[in-house]
């Protein structure tokens, strides 16, 4: 089981935002998609989980298996408490609706919350939690269906450095515990170096670098050099 993307193309209003992108992520592997804002990173995740339709190319995902996504701003259901958020798919999804008893669901929720280090907050509402805690609850919600692919959209954006470290540790821990193929969209160096097994860098919808975190840090190419040094000088121009 793995996830493979072949020659993916997506246009919005005649602008090509994803231009012939191909990559493969194996089980138990974390791929970081990096690049400046607006380079098309999040679009790839939305294409993989079919929130938007691709124009051409191929996305091969494990057949019949779930794909989970952790959203940038957690996207927890704010009218539901933590337990109901995590159990949402178990309560509402057609194939899971009658599969578990309420007792089982309670047990699963507690287990997932423990996995993300948030034991005993079942009855709290998202608004009562910090940004980092919301993110971890969204992790728990994402893995409740035992997915074989986990997508993270800027998981550490807007968090303080210590919360970021905690989230990064959970990404690695989830990879080890679930053996899922994971894709992390980020532009934070700590997230890249602490979580990724391999990296692709996007610029203007195209892959401009493929390698490991160590290769990225070597700054062997003008793209990696500019990215790592966060320089305004280089091949990548940010739209004003």
């Amino acid at each position, binding site marked *: 089981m793995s996830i493979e993307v072949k020659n993916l193309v997506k246009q919005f209003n005649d602008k090509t935002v994803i231009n012939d992108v191909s990559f493969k992520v194996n089980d138990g592997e974390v791929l970081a998609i990096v690049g400046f804002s607006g380079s098309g990173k999040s679009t790839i995740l*939305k294409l993989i*989980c*079919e*929130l938007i339709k691709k124009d051409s190319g191929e996305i091969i995902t494990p057949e019949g298996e*779930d*794909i*989970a*996504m952790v*959203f*940038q*701003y957690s*996207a*927890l*259901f*704010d*009218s539901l408490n933590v337990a109901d958020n995590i159990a*949402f*798919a178990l309560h*509402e*999804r*057609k194939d899971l609706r009658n599969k578990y008893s309420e007792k089982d669901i309670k047990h699963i929720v507690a287990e997932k919350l423990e996995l993300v280090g948030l034991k005993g907050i079942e009855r709290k509402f998202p608004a009562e939690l910090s940004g980092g805690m919301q993110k971890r609850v*969204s992790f728990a*919600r994402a893995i409740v*269906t035992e997915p074989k692919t986990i997508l993270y959209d800027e998981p550490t954006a807007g968090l303080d450095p210590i919360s970021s470290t905690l989230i990064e540790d959970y990404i690695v821990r989830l990879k080890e515990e679930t053996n899922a193929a994971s894709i992390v969209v980020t532009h934070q160096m700590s997230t890249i170096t602490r979580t990724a097994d391999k990296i692709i860098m996007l610029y203007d919808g195209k892959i401009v670098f493929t390698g490991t975190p160590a290769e990225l840090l070597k700054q062997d190419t003008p793209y990696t050099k500019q990215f790592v040094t966060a320089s305004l000088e280089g091949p990548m121009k940010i739209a004003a």
Partner: protein
Amino acid sequence: MDYKLIYKYFKQTATYKIATGILADLYVFIETIGNIAYNGFHTCKFIIKGDINFKEVIEQCYRFGITSLPITLSIVGMTSVIVASQVASEMVKQGGSNFVGLLMTMLIVREVSAVMSGFAIISMIGSSLASEIATMKVTSQIDAMKVLNIDPIRYLFVPRILAGTMMMPIIVVIAGIVGVLAGAVTAHLSADLGYRAFFDSAWLGVYMKDLGVSLLKALAFGATIALVSCSTGYEATGGAKGVGIATTKAVVWSFVAIVIWDMVFAMVFFF
């Protein structure tokens, strides 16, 4: 002839700007109608299949019926007071005291209870449905639902539309009773019309057909308000501004839809 140059200058004219503005509005109008029809169709599919989240339906029924009732009854009651206070004394003066009850009851049963309740529900429930779903849309909660393989139409639309359709007739019946009672009290206080005289004539002008049409209207209004509000919320884009636009659109479209429905009912049953 340099057509490119002509086109370039034409694009700067007021005619071009007005025409493109109208076309853009027309496009949005058709798109909104299309989305409402599409969502309505999918909602019906789930209802016909019996694929319904009953717990959510009950919650939405409470929201539609109970939370909106004080405002709805106040609006219908006050409308009845306004009409009765002006009509009753004049009719009594003109010797028509035997018809005050008839007129008020006919007016309330045929129009006021359904239409004014509809307006109250739009402003209280329709706007809240639209802003709730629009907020879910712009904060990716609906995307999260889709990624979890849960159809937002089943979870969000079906219970709200069912609740609107089921609760609206109940609201209209209660509002009608309150409206008639308010009319009787007002006629008594403003024109010294006896309650007996009011209620003796109240039954004369109201037929089963009127009650049936009023309930049919209530069903149509309830379903329409819920469907339009959910659909406009569901199409929201952007941030807080998008939520505001969706909410305004829900209210305006629901108002227009109800008036159109009312006109259709009047033409079909009373023309």
